[in-house]
């Protein structure tokens, strides 16, 4: 069943390149299910058309039919509005709504057209209200939404970690003019000022000065020009700097000052550049004055003038730095162009209360930053046409911080930022491309009864490969590039082509086999002395974790021989391990039991059944309550919450300790809220957070490469933590100074806290 929709479009007078054809089948693929619409019609070149729809995923092999509410936003050049409306009309079969929410300065111009074409009543919403609503929404729901732009730095984009506390902030919206809005709370904002010198001035005046019609072309001219030929600089007046005021010679004293005195021709490029500087500086200055007056330090810039254009982001950033001496940073938003449409939709969907859910960006359906930027990758631009898309999935649960994070505001899940680390980026992009064949094969194999699976798998291959190529050119397209984002993108793409769980059969098979060994394993462990057992348990978890179908090195070595625990221990390196705090852990285990342990589990099969469960059993026997956190949705061969429920029942049937644990509610299964092979502790299921607080959790165990190495390796918790993983990638092992199958066993006690009575702190 479908949910809703939103549109953002921009009427402009210029005509588009008609050779670009509309690829509507892909763009509007979920339209049939759309329940609600909104449209944002700007006064600009680009329009955003947003749809919120639910996609009915009809994969038959899936246990249940998934219904995911999804926000679709499509930006397109306004020349397409009629074509798009026609398409919508033809495909809009089951819409229940008779009203379309519209916002933007151009809404009234297109009102008639929309009403005529779609037979829907256009309901106008205030532009600024929509904009702010949209802004709050993306800031809260999309990690790495905001970024600082630094043209000459190693990585041009420095993404900001999501801070749940987004207010207050200043939004400087640069459309045709400039609006400066102070936002203090979800529904509390005020336009505190503005300026008429904005994008329209750049475009209008630029067109007059250079006879160049298009906004993009003007920007391109500007990027090639030298403003110093047109502007009068301080040094043109002083011959050097104006030392006593600290004004350097290169400062612009008078914009266009030279064209007033010098009787000569000025180049288009130089004039465009001068104009760009003039307008950016002016806006930056006003923004600073307003920020100062209202004592605000977070200033976001948006509007079509910015919209991913590196030139304007650079000049604005420069201006802000200059006027505030670095005290205020200019922040930009990845999805800035969608804010109006998102807001309009949210207005229309208020009855569905979209703000009560958490949403996640769908990497498969989103174009990423700068997909339409004139400066970037023209080839790719041609391929995507002139469309830019954002899709967001409604997550079933609300996501919150793990209450045990030491400092939520500085927590960064990812260990390596591939946007900054070029070598690592190169390797991982290569690695994921190499692995693609295998993933495609597995996807096809997972749906043997479906004839078109091969076709879909091929489409998946193309899509993911294209994403990898995009990321090679624009590593920042979806925020900071990380191993996690690469993995998540792959999952999203697989999902997109109805391969939601390619490992489901393998997982099942492995679980069945591993279960047969469970009792034997437990028995052999019980025969060991206490100290031997502790070590065997740890080795068991590590050895179990080696069986990860997601890691290439392991797949090569032991595809078939699903062996007993003891057999695969040969892979593990001897102690001392790469990171080895086993002795401290052992000492701790000799002490009083923990109150409650939160265990983030990894793979199905041997890992969970023969590695994790015996470990859990030991904790339970010691009197420690255990909360097992597993993925809400499938990712690789990771055990999902649903699967774990079944597995635990089956184990309980064999094992009185586990059975008692379940019965007495001392063993609890919760979902993490994630469908990723990695783990973001700042986006966890609200229920999990609640349980963690209620049970006074004093130990967090994180297992596996994705959750403990690629992410959270440096995560600081306010209670004891144990991170266990085997490095199953030789490049990564090398980087960390170890060999393939090196072991990381990282037991940490927060500074200043004696391990014996680690208190459960619950910062919210």
């Amino acid at each position, binding site marked *: 069943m479908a949910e809703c929709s939103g549109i953002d479009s921009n009427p402009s007078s210029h005509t588009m390149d008609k050779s670009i054809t509309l690829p509507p089948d892909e763009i509007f693929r979920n339209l049939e299910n759309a329940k609600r619409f909104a449209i944002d019609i700007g006064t600009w070149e680009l329009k955003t058309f947003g749809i919120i729809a639910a996609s009915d995923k009809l994969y038959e092999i899936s246990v249940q039919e998934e219904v995911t509410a999804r926000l679709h936003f499509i930006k397109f050049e306004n020349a397409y509005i009629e074509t798009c409306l026609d398409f919508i009309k033809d495909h809009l079969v089951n819409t229940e709504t008779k009203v379309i929410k519209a916002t933007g300065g151009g809404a009234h111009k297109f009102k008639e057209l929309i009403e005529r074409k779609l037979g829907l009543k256009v309901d106008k919403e205030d532009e600024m209200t929509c904009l702010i609503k949209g802004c709050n929404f993306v800031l809260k729901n999309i990690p790495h939404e905001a970024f600082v732009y630094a043209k000459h730095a190693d990585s041009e984009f420095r993404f900001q970690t999501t801070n749940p506390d987004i207010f207050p902030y200043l939004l400087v919206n640069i459309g045709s003019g400039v609006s400066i809005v102070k936002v203090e709370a979800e529904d509390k904002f005020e336009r505190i000022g503005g300026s008429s010198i904005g994008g329209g001035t750049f475009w209008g*005046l630029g*067109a007059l000065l250079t006879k160049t019609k298009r906004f993009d072309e003007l920007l391109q001219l500007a990027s090639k020009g030298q403003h110093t030929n047109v502007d009068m600089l301080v040094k043109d007046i002083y011959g050097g700097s104006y030392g006593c005021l600290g004004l350097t010679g290169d400062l612009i004293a008078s914009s*266009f000052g030279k064209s007033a005195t010098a009787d000569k021709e000025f180049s288009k490029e130089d004039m465009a550049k001068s104009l760009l500087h003039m307008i950016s500086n002016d806006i930056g200055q006003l923004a600073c004055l307003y920020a100062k007056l209202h004592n605000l330090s977070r200033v976001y810039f948006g509007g079509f003038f910015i919209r991913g254009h590196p030139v304007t982001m650079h000049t604005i950033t420069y201006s802000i730095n200059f006027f505030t001496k670095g005290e205020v940073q200019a922040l930009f938003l990845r999805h800035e162009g969608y804010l109006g449409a998102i807001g309009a939709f949210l207005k229309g969907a208020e009855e569905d209360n979209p703000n009560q859910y958490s949403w996640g960006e769908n990497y498969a359906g989103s174009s990423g930053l700068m997909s339409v930027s004139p400066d970037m990758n023209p080839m790719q631009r041609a391929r995507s046409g002139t469309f830019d898309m954002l899709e967001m999935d409604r997550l079933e649960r609300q996501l919150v911080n793990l209450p045990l994070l030491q400092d939520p505001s500085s927590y960064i899940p990812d260990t390596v930022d591939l946007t900054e680390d070029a070598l690592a980026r190169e390797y991982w992009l290569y690695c994921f491309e190499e692995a693609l064949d295998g993933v495609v094969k597995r996807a096809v194999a997972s749906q043997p009864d479906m004839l078109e699976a091969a076709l879909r798998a091929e489409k998946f291959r193309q899509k993911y490969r294209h994403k990898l190529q995009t990321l090679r050119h624009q590593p920042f397209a979806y925020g900071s590039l990380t191993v996690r984002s690469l993995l998540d993108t792959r999952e999203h793409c697989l999902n997109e082509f109805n391969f939601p769980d390619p490992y489901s059969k393998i997982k099942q098979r492995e679980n069945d086999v591993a279960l047969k060994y469970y009792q034997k394993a437990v028995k052999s462990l019980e025969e060991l002395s206490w100290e031997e057992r502790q070590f065997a348990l740890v080795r068991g978890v590590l050895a179990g974790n080696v069986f990860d179908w997601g890691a290439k090195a392991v797949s090569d070595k032991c595809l078939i021989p699903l062996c007993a625990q003891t057999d695969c221990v040969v892979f593990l390196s001897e102690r001392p391990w790469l990171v080895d705090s086993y002795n401290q852990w052992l000492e701790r285990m000799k002490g009083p039991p923990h109150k409650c342990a939160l265990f983030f589990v990894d793979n199905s099969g041997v890992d969970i059944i023969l590695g994790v469960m015996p470990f859990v059993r030991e904790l339970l026997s010691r009197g420690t309550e255990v909360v097992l956190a597993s993925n809400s949705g499938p990712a690789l061969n990771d055990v999902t919450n649903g699967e774990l429920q079944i597995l635990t029942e089956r184990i309980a049937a064999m094992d009185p300790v586990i059975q008692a644990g379940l019965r007495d509610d001392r063993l609890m299964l919760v979902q993490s809220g994630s469908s990723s092979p990695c783990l973001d502790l700042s986006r966890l299921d609200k229920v999990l957070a609640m349980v963690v607080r209620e049970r006074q959790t004093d130990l967090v165990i994180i297992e596996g490469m994705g959750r403990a190495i690629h992410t959270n390796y440096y995560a600081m918790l306010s209670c004891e933590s144990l991170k266990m993983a085997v490095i199953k990638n030789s490049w990564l092992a090398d980087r960390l100074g170890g060999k393939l199958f090196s072991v990381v066993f990282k037991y940490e006690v927060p500074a200043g806290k004696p391990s014996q009575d680690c208190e459960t702190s619950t910062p919210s």
Partner: protein
Amino acid sequence: MAFNGHQRDDDTVDEDETPTKQPRSNKEMPGYFRSEPGSEAAAPAGRATPDRRSSNATARHRSDSVKKTRPPFPWFGMDIGGTLVKLVYFEPKDITAEEEQEEVENLKSIRRYLTSNTAYGKTGIRDVHLQLQDLTLCGRTGNLHFIRFPTHDLPAFLQMGRNKHFSSLHTTLCATGGGAYKFESDFRTMADLQLHKLDELDCLIRGVLYIDSVVSSGPSECYYFENPTEPDRCVQKPYTLENPYPLLLVNIGSGVSILAVYSENNYKRVTGTSLGGGTFLGLCCLLTGCSTFEEALEMASLGESTRVDKLVRDIYGGDYERFGLPGWAVASSFGNMMSKEKRESVSKEDLARATLVTITNNIGSITRMCALNENIERVVFVGNFLRVNTLSMKLLAYAMDYWSKGQLKALFLRHEGYFGAVGALLELLHPS
């Protein structure tokens, strides 16, 4: 002690005429001349480095030293800006027969040349209407003349100085503005003149306070516009700049500097913008093919900016009530020019008008923000951008009043662009 108060003391020694201008208040400008006896004796030509901002010396009553320390004629003050050179010249009218005899020919010729003409070369102009009559300066009475010419004609000026053997007069030429630095070596090599360079903001403030204090007859130096928001009833009214502090001083030359002035010696440059008079003229030249400020203004006065700018009502069909934006407000300067049809339908006059309105309003809004941040309610606009530019002045008056809901008052001074040059002249006569 005020400037002319000082003059009174001098009267007893120099048989000068009774001063015609009385200071408004002696307390108004405490310690105007702060010459240290030591530095005066030690530096007859050269002056202590301008460091007035921290200067704390007290005024000193002198009588007999005036004659000795009074610099030789001619007395000039010069402000070399990015676009215009502003020159003030003091013409002594109390020359005795004896002096006349002693006066060298070169000096006479310069005096005659400057005072008998109102235009010099192709571009030099004397603003006769600004001339201050019977002013007493440093014990001498005479007229203060206000002359300007474009900075790019400075070579011609230097050539004239060379032809008239200006350097033989051994005068010190006090100069401020960026050009004082940029062209210092040209003055030396082309005209054999040594410049005494002065800080432009120091000079500006000194000049403003001085001129305001000495002008008491004729049109008031300071004025404002009454009923700025009602075009039909908007009239220029004299304003008495008593207790001027704190005030925001906005100097609109090629670029714009905004100063917060708390007392004569205590001020700071709050900010500035590169969108100033140079931008107006530069853009007008490019957009309309005009070549002078006067031409640009003339065109602007005939044009209609609403054909060029996109107004709030063009977007919202009326007021944007949600945010209290009136329909007539400009939403996007030059915003209509995004459309090809509209680009083809506007006149040069419209474009000139829109440029003027854009630049002026922008200065207005930056000024207003500074006034709020600095908590100052009185704003004085000066600088040559405002010369013969009633349009901009009324716009500024309107903008200050409207957007501040009457809190801010825009004030203007008749000698708009000359204050820096006046400050430089004062430095010659009374080094700080």
